[in-house]
């Protein structure tokens, strides 16, 4: 449902801006000078009024765009307060941090991470590709422990609600057979 709402909002913004531009170009005579689009489909909209309406539509579209973008960025930060002011951490920075923690394990070939802010804390979801021959339960437990510990101690986020590790691939070591894919 959220995706449909997002799509409608973006189409509305785009439509408003494009229509504003078209109206502005028509009314100012830059486009279809002769009939002024049948005097804006017989609405008898005078050129000055058309120019003003076009401007207003563009400005409204840009205002909606800014509101949309700033609403989107609010979700992309985790914040905590201290006496000197607010400290915010971008989700992207946390995801990158988690990915780098994972890459410190020699058996981790590739890792992607996703942070989900929830109830005053966060959930960490990672997808990993491991080298064949790794003790998967032990390794994933170590990864979970290390991520939790670093997020708490280095990033200062105490409330780590869960760390989900999905092993997507087992990559053979050099000289072994082809990779094994594991699906969720």
């Amino acid at each position: 449902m959220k995706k449909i709402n997002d799509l409608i909002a973006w189409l509305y913004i785009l439509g408003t801006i494009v229509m504003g531009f078209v109206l502005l170009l028509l009314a100012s005579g830059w486009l279809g000078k002769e009939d002024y689009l049948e005097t804006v489909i017989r609405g008898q909209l005078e050129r000055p009024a058309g120019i003003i309406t076009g401007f207003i539509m563009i400005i409204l579209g840009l205002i909606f765009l800014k509101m949309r973008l700033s609403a989107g960025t609010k979700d992309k930060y985790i914040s905590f307060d201290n006496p000197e002011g607010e400290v915010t951490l971008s989700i992207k920075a946390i995801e990158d941090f988690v990915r780098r923690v994972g890459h410190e394990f020699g058996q981790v070939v590739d890792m992607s991470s996703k942070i989900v802010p929830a109830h005053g804390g966060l959930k960490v979801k990672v997808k990993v590709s491991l080298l064949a021959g790794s003790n998967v339960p032990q390794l994933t437990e170590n990864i979970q422990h290390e991520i939790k510990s670093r997020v708490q101690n280095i990033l200062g986020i105490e409330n780590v609600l869960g760390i989900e590790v999905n092993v997507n691939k087992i990559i053979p070591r050099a000289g072994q057979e082809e990779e094994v894919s594991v699906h969720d």
Partner: protein
Amino acid sequence: MAEMINGNSVEWGKVKIHHDAIAAIAGKMVNGVQGVAKLSGSIVENIAAKLGKQPKDKGIRTEVVGEEVTINVSVVVLYGTKIPDVAWQIQKNVRKAVEEMTGLHVKGVNVNVEGVQLEDKEEDA
């Protein structure tokens, strides 16, 4: 950014302090904190920097409410540093320097950590 922050009135007239001056002081303090890789600018600031026009207030925003100033700092930190400690150090240093050098009251210093950078790499998160 042509706005000025009203400073104290002195015997011969009023002193106004430009936002860029506050940003320059704050920027210098932030760059001096161990664990800070760089100040993080907006898309526009980064494009301007690539075109050779380095903004003086890159990564620093100042907001004035009455006689108080709030400073927002966006940074990229080095991987492995304790972010709460770095943030606390930034806040402490910026507040102290701005208050001492301008006489303005700093209401708060907000720190936004935009990325994490490996020490030996130029590119951030």
